[in-house]
């Protein structure tokens, strides 16, 4: 496999030449410079979805801190970037006029952004710098919801991610949140299809079945149902061609798990060890849980200590942080013997599906970040070239073509996307194997060859050789169509790449 850096180097080279060609056109040169800079920056991952799908909550959970403001009503109204920075800083970019720095306030740990009277409609974006380990690998972009009741907000997200006027999408990859598959979701994902380079949209999109804790009406086993639903969505052909995979995630649970406080654990413990029927009555509904005088729900007043133990404020904050499902789950876990805060936190994160999401993000986005960034840059360059009349662009166009045709990683992406939308007519078993070998579930050799992660190089080599032979035969198969044969040849190249890059003993 050619190493990703080769591609990056080539892309950098062509970008530099382009800057040189366009030095007389400052606007374009600036744009190209930005693209160059972007290659050195972390991957940009946009979080999109319908209104109230839990985008900000998921962002907080990914960062592990309460930075994006969340609310019961519609909350995010401006496209907000969260990037790694040495000190906390908020900068507001209006549609017209110079950017302004905003004061950084924290309220109860969460960031409070005061627009200082500027209407959200006049803002292009907010950029938040935040010192965080998680933001170092990827810049996260929070977007307002689509299908919002206020059409203006919905339009802004569309404009950001799927611009009508052919200007460029600024995100390299998308996490798409949905609570259930609505027609608006599919429409949105479709519109995010790439137009020029690679036509590979499914490769940079992950769908997340969000707020998964609410699936079963807050039952403790709700997450299992959520997983079943996610599996069904994964098998659905329309979704397969639109995104890589569907993962159920309970964002709130994950966030709380990552930021569990000692006091909260103590309160939950108290709740878990209060009499069973009393706790159950309390957890029947949010109103019962928050009832000011709790003896109204259960008439027995023999356990005043445990009732008075949790003040209303504590109960309120518990509910806000855990949700009813989280409290039910936590008390159940504590009763079953989880007796340390760290144990509970780990269990909450595990059950929230966050680990799976992080794993998928790592294999599909972070490991490929150079590739995805190069792809974005090439796309931007192609766009510039197609709209330019400069005579020197022909050369550049040739270079871009050469990179596009030569980089096997891009071929892989393109093929993966084609395979997911069923444009390659391989038999079913071969289809699945080809997808895996092309890096559909991750680019590591072990993943491609479906071996365990600790397989030794000899095993890897053995498996790769076998796959190579098998696919060389497939490529020669006269019964396969031209498209399928091309796919087979690409798989062979992937196998060869793996073999050359395998560490030698």
């Amino acid at each position, binding site marked *: 496999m050619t190493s990703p850096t080769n591609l990056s180097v080539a892309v950098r080279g062509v970008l530099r030449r382009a800057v040189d060609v366009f030095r007389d056109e400052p606007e374009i040169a600036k744009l190209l410079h930005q693209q160059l800079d972007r290659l050195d920056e972390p991957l940009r991952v946009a979080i999109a979805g*319908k*209104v*109230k799908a839990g985008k900000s909550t998921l962002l907080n959970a990914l960062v592990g801190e309460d930075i994006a403001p969340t609310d*019961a*009503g*519609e909350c995010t109204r401006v496209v907000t970037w969260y990037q790694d920075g040495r000190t906390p800083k908020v900068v507001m970019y209006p549609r017209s006029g110079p950017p302004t720095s905003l004061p950084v306030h924290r309220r109860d740990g969460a960031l409070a952004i005061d627009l200082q009277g500027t209407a959200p409609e006049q803002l292009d974006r907010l950029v938040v710098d935040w010192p965080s380990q998680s933001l170092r690998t990827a810049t996260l972009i929070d977007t307002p919801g689509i*299908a*919002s*009741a206020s*059409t203006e907000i*919905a339009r802004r997200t569309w404009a950001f991610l799927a611009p009508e006027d052919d200007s460029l999408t600024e995100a390299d990859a998308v996490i798409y949140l949905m*609570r*259930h598959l*609505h*027609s*608006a979701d599919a429409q949105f994902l479709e519109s995010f299809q790439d137009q020029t380079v690679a036509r590979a949209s499914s490769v940079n999109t992950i769908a997340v079945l969000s*707020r998964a804790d*609410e*699936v*079963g*009406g*807050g039952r403790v086993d*709700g997450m299992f*149902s*959520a997983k*079943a*639903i996610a599996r*069904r969505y994964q098998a659905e052909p*329309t979704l397969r061609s639109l995104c890589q995979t569907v993962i159920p995630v309970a964002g709130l649970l994950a966030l709380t798990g990552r930021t569990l406080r000692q006091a909260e654990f103590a309160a939950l413990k108290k709740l878990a060890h209060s009499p069973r029927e009393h706790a159950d009555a309390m957890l*029947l*509904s*949010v*109103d019962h849980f*928050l009832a000011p005088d709790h003896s109204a729900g259960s008439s027995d007043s023999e356990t005043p200590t445990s009732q008075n133990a949790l003040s209303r404020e504590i109960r*309120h904050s518990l*509910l*806000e942080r855990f*949700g*009813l*499902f989280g409290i039910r789950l936590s008390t159940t876990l504590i009763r079953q013997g989880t007796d340390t805060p760290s144990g509970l936190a780990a269990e909450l994160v595990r059950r929230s599906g966050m680990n799976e999401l992080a794993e998928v993000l790592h294999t599909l986005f972070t490991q490929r970040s150079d590739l995805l960034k190069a792809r974005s840059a090439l796309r931007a360059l192609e766009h510039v070239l197609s709209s330019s009349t400069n005579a020197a662009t022909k050369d550049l166009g040739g270079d871009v073509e050469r990179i596009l045709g030569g980089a096997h990683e891009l071929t892989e992406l393109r093929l993966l996307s084609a395979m997911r939308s069923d*444009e390659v007519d391989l038999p079913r078993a071969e289809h699945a194997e080809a997808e895996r070998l092309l890096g559909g579930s991750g680019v590591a050799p072990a993943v491609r060859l479906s071996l365990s992660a600790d397989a030794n190089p000899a095993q890897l080599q053995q498996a790769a050789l076998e796959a190579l032979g098998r696919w060389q035969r497939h490529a020669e198969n006269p019964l396969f169509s031209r498209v399928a044969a091309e796919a087979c040849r690409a798989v062979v190249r992937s196998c060869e790449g793996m073999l050359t890059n395998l560490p030698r003993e």
Partner: protein
Amino acid sequence: MPSSTQIEAIDLALETIVRYNRPDLNSRLRQARARLQNGYIRVLVVGEFKQGKSLLVNGLVRAPVCPVYDDVATSVPTVVHYADAPVAALVRILDSGGDPSSTEGRVERVELPISELAQHISDQHISGNGSSNTTPRWHHAEVGIPRAELAGGLELVDTPGVGGLNSVHGAATMTALPSADAVLLVSDASQEYTAPELDFLRQAVKVCPNVACILTKTDLYPEWRRIAELDRGHLAAAGIDAELLAVSSTLRVHAIRSSDADLDAESGFPALMSYLTDRVVGQADLLACRSTAHDVLAVTGQLAGNLRSEYAAHSDPQAVGEVIKQLSQAQQHAEALKERSARWQHTLNDGVGDLNADIDYDLRDRMREIVREAEEELDNGGDPKKVWEQLSGWVEQEVNSAAAANFLWATQRARWLTGQVGDHFSVEGAEILPKLRTETDDALNYVRAMQLRDSEPFGIMQKGLTGLRGSYVGVLMFGMLGTVVGLPLINPFSVGAGLLLGGKGLTDERRRIVARRQSEAKTAVRRYVDDVIFQVGKESRDMLRRVQRDLRDHFTERAEELNLSLKTSLQTAENSVRTSKSQRERRLVEIPSELKHLEALERKVQNLLPQPGSAESVAATPLPEAPLHLTASTR
């Protein structure tokens, strides 16, 4: 049953009028009676999927009648109504072989225990995804359950949320709106209203008398009060006048299990139930009362008029002349009504004509737009075989919602026309308009599915042949040229030319086939839309014709009745001159008692109507058939 008192009153009236030998009045009362008996009050439960619609219905009837599952569960509408013993049935409409007019024998009903219903419906969901089954899908399920709440004729319809509000299912729900007495839009407390939900509400309030918004799952979301406030704000901003009720099905289940009245009240279900019984059923009841009272009073009024004129004639033979004069005046009045009746006929015929043209135009316009967009898409899209599935799905969905919108508009216009025609009669006092039951039976079911015929499979054989043909010509052409300069027929040049021409032949052929597929796809879309226009157009024309016939029959009957009554009165008055004295004496004794009888009946009927004080609360809301009492308009 609340309507039993009304039926009693009508029976009494029927008994009373037997002796007057007026078959026309008799049939009028019998019609009214039949209307009361068959009356049911339909409540549609709609919403996006996974909002808790089925759970809401289950909570309302306190029994697990609708299947509930964490994934999408309801795939067919489930109608829940009263029955003496629990029963369930699945209904499907069989294809009668292209004869959409015969509704008999096309309906298949399968009875089964309620416990198995869920399994059958969800089975369909899994197998129904392929939508290529040979047997038609279940059309709807019916569940009868002995519950006091439903005994008033309440009928709850749990609609499938599959695909969301703006899908084919959603369009089907839309067309069901005009036949519903109330709509409950279910939305859970996790978030405020979204754009599709508000659009739906906007449509619903136009055609349905009672629209309520139900906020479910309040047990799960701490901020449900905020959400309720936000939703109210959205409703107010959109100008939608609908009540918002918050409920929790989970609490309801717990309350039923532990028979805890406080918890039940907290679940919000008693409030919802009382909304349904007081507002929806109450309103329908009030409407039934009014029309019953109106029918009976109209009948007794005409009879009493006859008797009074007879009494006057008998009691004062000298004044007979005066009575006859008055009666002739009244008959002139009736003549005038007849003249007006000619005019209302005109209004009706013209109105229906206009309506037909407008509706047809609207339908064609909508469909043309869809065809245009689809064709554009096909032109840009390359080989249509690849995008066909998506495109046909899109076309079907668009066509469905366009047909639904067209139907809603037709219903609105038809109701307006009823008011217009009713105006001609309004001089006679309060005239109750006939209730229009505009129901479609899903014309789109008869439309054949769109299919892209693959007329020219372009396989290896065809490719080989085409390539061979091209290369043969090339080899021959250049080979012959070569022989002129002394080269053999098969030489490198001729072979090269053959390959070149063969390749060109292949590409040309491929391009030709794609172009051909494109035009075939366009034809398929056009044919489908044509089919839809044909079927839906027929459906809406039929509906309008039904409306026209109903209105004409209704108003002709009224005119006839009035005429006959006056004629009888005139005849009796004229006869009275010739009657003997003894006969006259006898009638003078009889008539007051008969009149008393009639008056007693009138009083009884009047009692059916709510007292002014209590009526306020119900009458404050707009009544279903909007122009109930048309105030006199002089024409």
